[in-house]
């Protein structure tokens, strides 16, 4: 029924697959063979649903942003993933995967993190389940997202700063993969986005699809229709976009817009706009758009937002781009900062800088007055306070 779906080898059209060294084959194969059966089993579904409700605080509100709507002369709804426990959509995935890991008999959890939101979500669910947790985080991100590092430590996780490459998310994924190669038997890699070898992109998209599942009935309650005219989400790896697009992928009347991090501009070298500047390649086990140089070396991305600072993108999103099912835009650092500040002042909501990239698009595209536009407010901005304040000249 779902035309945009993954085939049994893990491909979305040309993109995806499992390009892994033989050392990871048994682990990946174990996941491939078991994830659907476990995800669809009644006990798993029941346990996940109850944790999502009572522990993570779902459903998250669908909020009609009145003042924002007035200003932009359209109807803007915010899907409030920032109100979940731990403050971002990442918890949806972390809860699902930790139950899966437990079912597979794994004892030790590893994860990568960029902004630290996935790291915090993973540390949280590990504490809840009494499992050992190691989080790899680029050394630069450790510095710029310090509050999240402290949270992870308080939750009992070991945070390992990664000093290879650019010291950011890509390097953290590399180290997590190396850890997994060295600990294949007892360890589960709890990946944070719709990236990596099959089945991770599909697994994470399914776990995040709770966002668009809720959106359908929430919209029907509020507007009488279960679909908006437009959905906007920011994308780094693409998990919040995949989650909020999921149930609308085969409804072409819904306009899907993904916003990448332009960094200092897509005409500069300091950018993380993978779709704008990348070419098909292999990164972290998956064939997808990748930012790379003329020799096929992966280039170092840049964004003010640590969660979008990644030179690849999930294969599902590459496929949506290639099929013209989703539109892609890039918004720059300054535009995201401005949008974060504006939302704080207009609606009393401080968004994560990642989500602010999606909000910034409102300054670029005019939507008709009678349209319903849903923006995924994927995370809250507490972790970014220092950066936002410094850049807005609010602090000394």
């Amino acid at each position, binding site marked *: 029924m779902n035309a945009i779906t993954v085939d049994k080898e893990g491909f979305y059209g040309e993109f995806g697959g499992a390009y892994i*060294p*033989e050392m990871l*084959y048994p682990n990946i194969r174990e996941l491939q063979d078991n994830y659907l059966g476990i995800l669809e089993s009644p006990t798993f579904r029941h346990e996940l649903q109850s944790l999502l409700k009572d522990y993570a605080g779902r459903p998250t509100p669908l909020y009609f942003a009145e003042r924002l709507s007035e200003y932009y002369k359209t109807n803007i709804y915010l899907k409030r993933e920032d109100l979940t426990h731990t403050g971002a959509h990442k918890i949806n995935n972390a809860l699902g995967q930790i139950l899966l890991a437990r079912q597979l008999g794994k004892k030790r959890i590893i994860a990568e993190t960029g902004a630290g939101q996935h790291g915090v979500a993973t540390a949280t669910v590990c504490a809840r389940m009494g499992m050992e947790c190691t989080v790899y985080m680029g050394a630069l991100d450790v510095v710029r997202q310090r509050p999240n590092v402290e949270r992870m430590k308080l939750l009992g996780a070991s945070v390992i700063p990664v000093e290879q490459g650019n010291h950011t998310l890509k390097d953290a994924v590399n180290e997590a993969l*190396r850890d997994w190669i060295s600990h294949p038997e007892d360890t589960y890699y709890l990946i944070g986005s719709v990236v990596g070898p099959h089945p991770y992109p599909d697994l994470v998209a399914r776990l995040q699809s709770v966002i668009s599942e809720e959106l359908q009935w929430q919209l029907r309650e509020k507007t009488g229709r279960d679909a908006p005219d437009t959905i906007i989400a920011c994308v780094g790896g693409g998990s919040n976009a995949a989650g909020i697009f999921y149930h609308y992928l085969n409804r072409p009347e819904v306009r899907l817009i993904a916003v990448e991090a332009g960094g200092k501009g897509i005409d500069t070298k300091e950018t993380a706009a993978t779709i704008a500047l990348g070419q098909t390649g292999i990164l972290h086990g998956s064939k997808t758009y*990748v930012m790379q140089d*003329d*020799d*096929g*070396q992966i280039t170092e991305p840049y964004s003010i937002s640590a969660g979008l600072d990644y030179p690849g993108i999930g294969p599902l999103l590459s496929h949506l781009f290639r099929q013209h099912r989703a539109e892609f835009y890039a918004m720059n650092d300054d535009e995201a900062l401005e949008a974060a500040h504006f939302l704080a002042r207009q609606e009393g909501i401080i968004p994560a800088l990642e989500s602010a990239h999606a909000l910034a698009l409102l300054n670029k595209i005019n939507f008709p007055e009678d349209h319903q536009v849903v923006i995924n407010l994927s995370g809250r901005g507490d972790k970014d306070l220092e950066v936002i304040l410094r850049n807005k000249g609010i602090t000394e």
Partner: protein
Amino acid sequence: MNRIDKLFQTKSGRILSVYFTAGYPEINSTIPIIRALSDNGADMIEIGVPFSDPVADGPVIQHSSSAALKNGISLKKLLNRLKDIREITDVPLLMMSYLNPVLHYGMEKFCRDIHETGIDGTIIPDMPLEIYTKNYKHIFRGYGIKNIFLVTPQTAEERIRFIDVEGEGFLYVVSSQSTTGTKQVFPKKQMDYFKHLKDMQLKNRLLAGFGISNRVTFNQACRYLDGAIVGSAFIKVLENAPDIHTATHVFIRDLTGRS
């Protein structure tokens, strides 16, 4: 005949294959290193194409790879430097690369160009057997390039047999659960695994890699397998070597006990 097959026909046991990262320690080191290895009795040489994100490699090769990239090496430049390599040596040459630089270069063009250069085989760790068989095998076969596959202590017996059927040249036996690096001695668990592989009576010859660093580990590998591959330990030697030739001579002598 492919030089890898010829090597295994003419020599049995204690085969030494040495890996190094092209463009390291200097961009011009590649040819002198191949010459030194060839002159000092390496049976096979693996030329590593550096990659920005070598997930199967430990700290030593990560470091040599990023240093080589900083030195400005690329697959294109490397092939250009290697174009007269067959005037220097007859030792079988393998090229080891992650998949992305190869795909970016073009798989067909890659196989054609390395074949013309006189490269005999490839090791592409993140190109799984299934994807090779489905998409690329005909290209490799067409140019007579042997693509080498890995087996690990985690690989199920059934899959080892499957890899053995599809595999050519030899099987790269990953010694233990780790990325590339060095070990002082292999525990019994590894020895049992080597012996188990030998007892399986596979069609392909078996060379152990990952962790071989000294005469002890080399001898351990050779007890049950056809030989061993060293990488990190050799790169560490190159790092501090005033003279590549002498350093290579001492390294191979100490490792193998050959005088």
